[in-house]
């Protein structure tokens, strides 16, 4: 057993059943959106952070809350606004009086949680965004010369609204690159929307989400996901796909090698989620858009023609 593997004897089948149970528990709160739920779970299994983009009112916050509730993870929410300071997120030192006298103690900010929901992250100032993203990347924060390690596992699930751009600070490419996935939450289907209304407007409240996964089990699963084998040719094709984003005419700026790593990691996580012990090309294809869509910038001619990042990635997949 390697150092990364947890010191517990866990059965892989049982863990996969637990993950399925999490999916079912989230389904108690979120109607439809199966693909979004799966992508969110992939992000958790791959130990990454996700950027959720959707119009308001599509249940992003509920989704993240349900995920935290189904697992043994602490949850905090940060509503980003232009006046939000970095210390409001990371924490700050305060003077506390005790029997021994006054002393400076570090008051942990909301970022000290396993699951952090950063609502409307593009409304925070770049300075605050940078503080959060740095914590997200390093999994630690530094305040008054002291370094504090964030809880493990640690996920930042940030949301942003694509239509209301006034007074926002769009995340620069270097920042968005740190999100493993960009999950687009679309409007629900007709039947799903009827079910949402029925479920949340009646006298009977939806079933509460039960806790079915511990943080220890999540770490065990993350370790297993890293060990999912991938065939050499599949890995090469995934890398070639990312490299192709730097060469096609439709894309002005392509994805970084971090995207290559992210694509392989998420493909492994998706394979695990599907109950497989190996990565399939289907996994790579399914994860290509969420991994790449926020890491590429389209050429202005392609934008003028109405091409979206998903379209561009889709064409690369077809060509590959």
């Amino acid at each position: 057993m390697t150092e990364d593997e947890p010191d517990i004897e866990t059965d892989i089948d049982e863990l996969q059943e637990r993950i399925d149970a999490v999916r079912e528990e989230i389904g108690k709160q979120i109607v439809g959106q199966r693909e979004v739920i799966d992508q969110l779970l992939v992000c958790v299994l791959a130990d990454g952070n996700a950027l959720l983009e959707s119009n308001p009112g599509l249940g992003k916050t509920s989704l993240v809350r349900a995920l935290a509730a189904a697992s043994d993870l602490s949850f905090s929410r940060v509503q980003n606004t232009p006046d939000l300071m970095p210390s409001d997120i990371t924490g700050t030192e305060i003077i506390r009086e005790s029997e021994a006298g006054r002393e400076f103690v570090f008051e942990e900010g909301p970022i000290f949680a396993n699951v952090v929901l950063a609502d409307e992250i593009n409304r925070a100032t770049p300075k605050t965004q940078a503080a959060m993203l740095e914590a997200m990347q390093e999994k630690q924060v530094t305040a008054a010369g002291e370094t504090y390690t964030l809880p493990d596992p640690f996920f930042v699930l940030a949301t942003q609204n694509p239509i209301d751009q006034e007074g926002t600070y769009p995340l620069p490419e270097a920042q968005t690159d740190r999100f493993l996935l960009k999950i687009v939450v679309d409007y629900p289907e007709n039947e799903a929307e009827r079910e949402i209304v029925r479920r949340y407007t009646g006298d009977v409240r939806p079933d509460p989400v039960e806790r079915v996964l511990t943080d220890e089990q999540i770490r065990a699963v993350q370790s297993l996901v890293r060990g999912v084998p991938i065939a050499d040719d599949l890995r090469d094709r995934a890398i070639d796909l990312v490299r192709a984003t730097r060469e096609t005419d439709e894309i002005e700026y392509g994805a970084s090698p971090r995207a290559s790593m992210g694509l392989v990691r998420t493909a492994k996580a998706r394979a695990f989620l599907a109950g497989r012990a190996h990565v399939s090309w289907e996994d790579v294809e399914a994860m290509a858009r969420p991994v790449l869509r926020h890491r590429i910038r389209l050429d202005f001619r392609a934008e003028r023609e109405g091409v979206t990042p998903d379209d561009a990635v889709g064409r690369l997949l077809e060509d590959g």
Partner: protein
Amino acid sequence: MADDEAERGEARDRMAAALQAVRREGRKVAAIYATVDAVLLGLLADLACATVAAVPARVALPAAAPIDALPVPILAAALVATLAFAAEYGYRTRRPLVEQFEAANPAVREALRTARDAVDTGSDTRMAARLYERVLVDLRETSSIALLDARRVAVTVVAVVVVSLLCVHAALAGIAVDVGGGPGPATASSGGGGGGSTSDEYGGLQDGSGVLGDPTDVQAGNDALNASVDASGGGGTGDDGPDSYDASGYTGGSDAAIESQQAGYDDPTGIEDAELIREYTLRIRSNQSQ
């Protein structure tokens, strides 16, 4: 924990052994294809050499060889078959054998390829061990028969049988095809001859009586003749002419001049009794020698 590691190592070893078995099956299939194709090509070469008139029947071997010559068709067949086998076997085993097996068994394609790469890199994570176990189970349900295109092999075997029969027929009937190297047009000849310009179709054994004709009696032969030969020296008198024979001893049994007789045929196609002809001939020669 140590048991877990040992178990995973064992799974990897079993997977490695299974991959070796898959490669072995691939080599077997390649050998089957190469063999049937080589036999077919060898037989075709044999047939071509046996029927083409321009090809010599035998080729001489160097003096050091234990035998003097080898039949060209057999030599050509062996050469072509060996080359064909080597070329096809090499071609078929050039592509990775595991990938050929994957192509024939798409159900295990990705898992098997991943397991192969994982074994090659020595991966023994728990997920890799799980993959090995699953692939080993899947491999039990697959078959290397899928590697073999039975229809193609069957067609080739049928072709081998047909060409074999043609070879046998050509050897027995002595069919020879002149492909332009011979002196005359392409013909079929008895005895495996080389395409002569005369038409000598074989008509079967002929009746000897038909050839010799019916035996007939001859009138001559009853008289005893005395012949004398001039015993003078070889030089002679110098006047021995063509008619000196009569004047030099032969007097005959009657007054009439004896005319020399020779055995002959009573008609262009028939001949006299063979014994009589033989006797006359001997007597004439005896007279001549005297």
